């Protein structure tokens, strides 16, 4: 039902888009026709002027109103035959109103002696003359051409409110300048020492690109991970947080991870589901020394983390 409404609305929009230029074209042509008619009327009247008995005060001539009115009637008969939309109404104050029109123009013929004023009434077009079947046909054609676009537009529109209902999922912001980790939604900050901070940034970056490598406490750290951690430690030195030489990240790894977990616990206190993404898994069950244990972040993606001062 919704789909039908959308198609009807699109049809109306297309129809309007075609109908407006069509009507505008009709209007302009009608105006130009009127202008031409007025010019022809003026020419005819100017040529007939010596034969009309119009009043002339300078010569004490009263004028023959009846013959002038007859002349105008004959004139309008000719205009009707030629399908003109203009009619002559008044010549020099001698008025003849057959069917009163709402619209008229006044023209002045500058004849030698007294100027001759005339009123020409103009017929406006009927509303039906502005309409045509062509815009409807074109609108239907364009509905057919754009049907798939309309369908997509509809479904997207119906999805948007569903997304909006869900609250924004928080992400983790790691600020190297302030040495804190921040929850983007609740703005909860937790400071972290240099070593765990570097290691965590390196770990998250490493895990987004190398998901298949298993990180185990019993093994050495992969070279890439160490390099990344060193790189971020150098960055911390640059930022002036420490002057000590870089630590060995393989030493007391479990302690480093614990510090990280503790900080994450604080930051994501309200969102345990979200925390799982960032949380280096703890070893449990048969023993923390299990060869199968993997402390890497399995589900992290680059959009989950924002690093400030990288």
């Amino acid at each position, binding site marked *: 039902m919704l789909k039908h409404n959308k198609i009807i609305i699109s049809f109306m929009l297309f129809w309007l888009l075609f109908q407006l*230029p*069509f009507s*505008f*074209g*009709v*209007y302009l*042509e009608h105006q130009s*026709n009127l202008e031409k008619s007025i010019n022809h009327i003026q020419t005819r009247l100017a040529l007939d002027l010596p034969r009309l008995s119009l009043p002339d005060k300078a010569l004490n001539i009263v004028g023959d109103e009846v013959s002038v009115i007859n002349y105008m009637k004959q004139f309008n008969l000719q205009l009707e035959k030629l399908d003109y939309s203009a009619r002559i109404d008044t010549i020099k104050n001698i008025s003849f109103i057959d069917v009163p029109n709402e619209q008229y123009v006044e023209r002045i013929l500058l004849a030698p002696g007294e100027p001759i004023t005339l009123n020409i009434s103009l017929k406006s077009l009927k509303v039906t003359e502005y309409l*045509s079947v062509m815009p409807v046909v074109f609108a239907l054609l*364009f509905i057919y051409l754009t049907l798939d676009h309309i369908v997509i537009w509809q479904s997207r529109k119906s999805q948007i409110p569903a997304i909006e209902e869900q609250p924004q999922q928080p992400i983790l912001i790691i600020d190297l300048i302030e040495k804190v980790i921040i929850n983007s939604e609740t703005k909860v900050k937790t400071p972290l020492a240099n070593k765990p901070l570097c290691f965590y940034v390196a770990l998250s970056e490493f895990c987004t690109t190398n998901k298949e490598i298993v990180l185990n406490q019993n093994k050495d750290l992969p070279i890439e991970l160490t390099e990344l951690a060193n790189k971020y430690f150098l960055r911390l030195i640059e930022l002036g947080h420490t002057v000590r030489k870089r630590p060995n990240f393989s030493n007391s790894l479990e302690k480093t991870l614990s510090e990280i977990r503790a900080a994450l616990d604080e930051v994501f206190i309200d969102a345990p589901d979200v925390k799982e993404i960032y949380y280096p898994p703890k070893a449990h069950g048969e023993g923390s020394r299990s060869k199968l244990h993997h402390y890497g972040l399995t589900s992290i993606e680059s959009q989950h983390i924002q690093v400030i001062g990288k």
Partner: protein
Amino acid sequence: MLSDQAFFGKRLIVTLLCTAIIFMFYLGNSSVDITDEPIPVFMEISNQCKTEGKAVGNNLIIYVPSEIVAKQVSHKLCKDDVVAKQYGNVIVHWGYKLGDSVEFLGKGVADLILAKENIMQAFMAESTYNYQAVLGYSNYTAFFISLQEKPKLNKLYFLDKKIGLLDYPTSRSGHILPKALFKDLDINIDNLDITYANSHEGLRELLASGKVDLIASYWKKGDEKQFSKNYIEPISNPISGSKWYLKMDVDNTDLLCAVQKNLYDLAKENESTYFNHVKLFKSCQNILSQKAV
């Protein structure tokens, strides 16, 4: 269905849409009929009819101020045998303007013309082109007509009156004679309150509606319904009515008699008392009566 339509990408659709919009504009523009035809001449100032004769090159030119009379006369003369023998076409001109009659009469263009005696005399057309009176309408008298009192022909009377006159200077009863009277009474015409009208009927309307106190016109049958015959004052002796003049380049008496007969018949058909009281000139009267005998 979706797979065929994937062919129409957004870019293609937008291009087509713009083209279609421009096309719609031109379609609308061309759907209105262009009216750019000049208006033809529709004012009639003359009429031509063919006689049954063979003298195609000869035209009988008539001038009559009134369109109705002009058409009646040409219709009658076209059917006449004598006219058919001599002329191929009868062309009749009419016009309300004074200038027209001056052209036709003063230049001798018209063969037959209905004119007033004073104009004929002014152009000396009787001697220049040998225009001969064929038939004349009855003489009449010019009057001042008032609504509520009998007009007095003295200076004091006119000075505070509103006077209705005709606006064309060839009219004797409505223009020339009253103005001549004012001159005789030593009245400066500029000091009079004169309202002009276009016709004798127009004058009567002015008087009846009270816009003027008195008018200069003739007395015709039917006027007593509106005005009182007691409240009229003659301005002059009877003046001759309009006359039909025929140009007699040669002594074409046949034509004269034919024209006279037709005009006489026409006058008798006319319901107006003024137009059916006619006076015949020339000796055709005798010829006609002899034929009748």
